[in-house]
């Protein structure tokens, strides 16, 4: 059974969060039932700002994440390398290769 697309779900959740956020910050005057002009322009600006901020954040994230992941992978390799050497003369086995130490570790 498949669910509705996760992107659509995320988009709708963001929509709800934006509504709550902008309502909280822009709607302060509850003396009237209708939105005032000031509230309307505040809401329009709020929506546009949130969308643009999100785009910028995404750009920054996409720019920084690969370097961070690479650094993390290099740190992992550096930590695993010297630890693997004294245990066995062979290099550390990959996930597909059976390891002689695995049955002992499993029990």
């Amino acid at each position: 059974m498949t669910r509705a697309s996760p992107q659509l779900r995320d988009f709708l959740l963001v929509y709800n969060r934006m509504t709550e956020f902008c309502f909280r910050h822009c709607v302060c005057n509850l003396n009237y039932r209708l939105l005032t002009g000031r509230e309307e322009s505040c809401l329009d600006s709020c929506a546009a700002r949130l969308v643009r901020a999100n785009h910028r954040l995404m750009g920054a994230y996409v720019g920084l994440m690969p370097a961070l992941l690479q650094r993390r992978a290099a740190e992992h390799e550096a930590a695993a390398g010297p630890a693997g050497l004294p245990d066995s003369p062979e290099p550390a086995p990959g996930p597909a290769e059976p390891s002689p130490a695995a049955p002992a570790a499993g029990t």
Partner: protein
Amino acid sequence: MDPLRAQQLAAELEVEMMADMYNRMTQACHRKCVPPYYKESELSKGECVCLDRCVAKYLEVHERMGKKLTELSLQDEELLKRMQQGTGTA
């Protein structure tokens, strides 16, 4: 995907999102209209009227944000198309 199944999923998603919106609206209006003074259990007339107006405004904000988001995403799509056309012809 089967169109009937797609329709059913869309309806389920809509119900879920409406429930989420309702919960957020409840929280927001409670924060705005009901001060945290618990001497009396009854809501005052002012608080009741505030809640009515708050709900009306929240629903209007929800509709307005939906239109604005659609407008902004259409603008983004047009910009992307123009950029792609520009790189294609260059």
